[in-house]
């Protein structure tokens, strides 16, 4: 029971972190129709920028400066790269961001090399906030939860209470109309891309110390972000939230409980072969839930797309 509570909290942290990435990606996708393959790369940039800043002035200034820097980088890439590709259509756009992801990884290695960076959480958070049955829950994770929730509330406020938010909401459902409302569409696009990438950058800043700051960090997270927004439904913020939490918990629980295929097979009345060493199905018998945990989201995505191509809460199919 206590482990369940701990897992719920851990899953919440993972899910909220995922949501910080997904919200930006969904914004960008909904407004611009661009599935930004490089989104996780901006997350990585956030972590590296923050690390660099932290070596000069410590953690806290990085929390503000790094996301802003990432956002500016994102806006510049939109202005001088994506906007040019936009005219060729969506497939070249997607491929552009795909190439961008590779390029950013190389650029990061060019400057920071290939090792892990010694990027730590600030000293004030280096204690266990509380512990449940011997399981310490680090204070920094509590901080992460609060930052993520704060971001979500700010986003919610902007979307539902401000003029900009109303435009964005309109664009989420009816992308074509916004262009006809007399707004400076290129500027809006640049802004959205900048803000979206800045949010990814912020996620990187706060996740870097926990999940590690290394050149592979974007790849590890890369496609799972897509999977999440596709499951949630393209263009739906609530869908993104629900899918993020779902995947966060799914992965946490899958890693926590050693359900084995052998248990399941024997429960349905199939006998375990005595000698597995030469059995063609030996891998099936030894399969455990933690082994397949990370691929569960992909399985879920394929199922969702086959059954309900617009995703859980998606309003449109693109």
């Amino acid at each position, binding site marked *: 029971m206590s*482990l369940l509570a*701990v*897992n719920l909290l*851990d899953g919440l*942290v*993972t899910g909220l972190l995922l949501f910080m990435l997904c919200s930006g990606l969904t914004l960008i996708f909904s407004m611009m129709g661009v599935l930004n393959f490089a989104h996780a790369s901006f997350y990585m940039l956030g972590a590296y920028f923050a690390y660099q800043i932290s070596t000069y002035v410590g953690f806290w200034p990085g929390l503000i400066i790094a996301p802003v820097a990432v956002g500016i980088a994102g806006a510049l890439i939109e202005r001088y790269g994506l906007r040019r590709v936009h005219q060729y259509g969506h497939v070249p756009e997607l491929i552009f961001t795909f190439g961008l992801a590779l390029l950013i990884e190389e650029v990061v*290695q060019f400057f920071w*090399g*290939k*090792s*892990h*960076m*010694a990027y730590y959480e600030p000293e004030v958070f280096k204690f*266990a906030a509380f*512990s449940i*049955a*011997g*399981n*310490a829950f*680090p204070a920094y994770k509590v901080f992460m939860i609060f930052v993520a929730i704060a971001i979500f509330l700010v986003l919610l406020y902007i979307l539902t209470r401000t003029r900009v938010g109303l435009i964005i909401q309109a664009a989420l459902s009816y992308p074509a109309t916004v262009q006809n409302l007399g707004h400076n569409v290129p500027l809006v696009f640049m802004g959205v891309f900048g803000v979206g990438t800045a949010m990814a950058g912020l996620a990187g800043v706060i996740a870097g110390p*926990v*999940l*590690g700051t*290394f*050149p*592979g*960090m974007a*790849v*590890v*997270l890369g496609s*799972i972000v897509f999977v999440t927004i596709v499951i949630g439904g393209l263009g739906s913020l609530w869908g993104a939230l629900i899918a993020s939490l779902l995947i966060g918990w799914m*992965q*946490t*629980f899958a*890693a*926590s409980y*050693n359900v084995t295929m052998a248990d399941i097979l024997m429960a349905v009345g199939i006998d375990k072969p005595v000698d597995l060493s030469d059995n063609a199905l030996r891998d099936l018998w030894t399969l*455990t839930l*933690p*082994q*397949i*945990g*990370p*691929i569960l989201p992909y399985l879920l995505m394929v199922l969702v797309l086959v059954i309900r191509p617009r995703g859980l809460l998606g309003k449109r199919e693109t």
Partner: protein
Amino acid sequence: MRKLTGLLLGVAIAGLTATASFAADTIKFAFIDPLSGPFAATGQQGLSQYKFAADELVNKKGGVLGKEFEIVAFDNKISPKESLIQLQVAIDQGIRFIVQGNSSGVANALTDAIKKHNKRNPDARVLFLNYSAVDPALTNDKCNFWHFRFDANADIKMDALTDIIAANDDIKKVYLIGQDYSFGKAVAAAAVKMLGEKRPDIEIVGNELHPIGRVKDFTPYARKIMSSGADAMITGNWGADMVGLGKSVIAAGYDNPIYTYYAAADGITKTFGADGKGKVKLVGEGQLNPPPNDRADAYAKAFKAKYPDTDIGQPRIANVMEMLAKAIDQAGSDTDMVAIGKALEGMEHDSLWGTKVFMRPDDHQVIQNVHILAHTDDGVSHDFDNSGYGLVVESTVEMASADAPTTCKMDRPE
């Protein structure tokens, strides 16, 4: 357009072969390891160590047969396919010694390809000097005459590690966790078997595999380890999986030893820093701290002076260079691979690191002292990652697994 294609190809392959044409008066070693991509840091470190060892231990002493050693780097991007292409390029350049270490998958592909190559091209045979790939199969079922392993394999390391654990009565519960692939499985299987033989009373409270390179957050695993009440954990994890696992376990409040294979250097030592002190242990060969002798101390200092951002993460590389120099000298040829191979078989060598090194002829597995090393900042004269932290020898198993059986049936050329 086809013409253009031909032209491009011509230019490129002319380039490929051009490098082979000059400087034929050195003995070349093809270093085939990742120099780009996620594992490049390890590859770069190995390359620096090889270059340094070749210069310091061989070339400064006048080389062998009047020739100097030269390390030629090939980037295999840790891909088996690329490794095979680079192997072919290296052979074309007339290189007869292949060194590789990162990833047993690549080592398996290479040993297989080299075996076939030597069979099909008896006049251009090559030797495979494996300095780091520790899959036991390479010197058991998959052994061949051309492959020599200079690192202790996974079973030997586990043998040494379980000797130490068996002697520690405080350890009653052990948790095994590893990456879901052959090496991770080999570590787990060896641990279960050897602990069962040496300390049947020890309870294995967890034995699990996680997907390799795909786990973003190890917290759930850390929770399981905590709730199992383990007194010690053993993991074969490396790279980001090692860092992630270690950080999560420590953050979750774990305070017992973590026995590892690869939790040092490449930024890992720095990342663990003070948190890992007294917890992170590593099983491996090569003694840096305390320095076993003045020669080793001087060697390590000179290395650091030349490569301040790199560490001697694989001390055995010095053995590879020294033993090859000896073997080539004994064979009196740098092209007769059979003679060099036979000279290497059964060679006994006094290592720079204060241990005797014996190349077992039955399976071409090196036998040497294996240590349990502790991650600490006390008594560290040669740290890693310039962090002040390093590995200090805690206990030693002399000539570990010297009489361990092998399933190797060596097919020797005449």
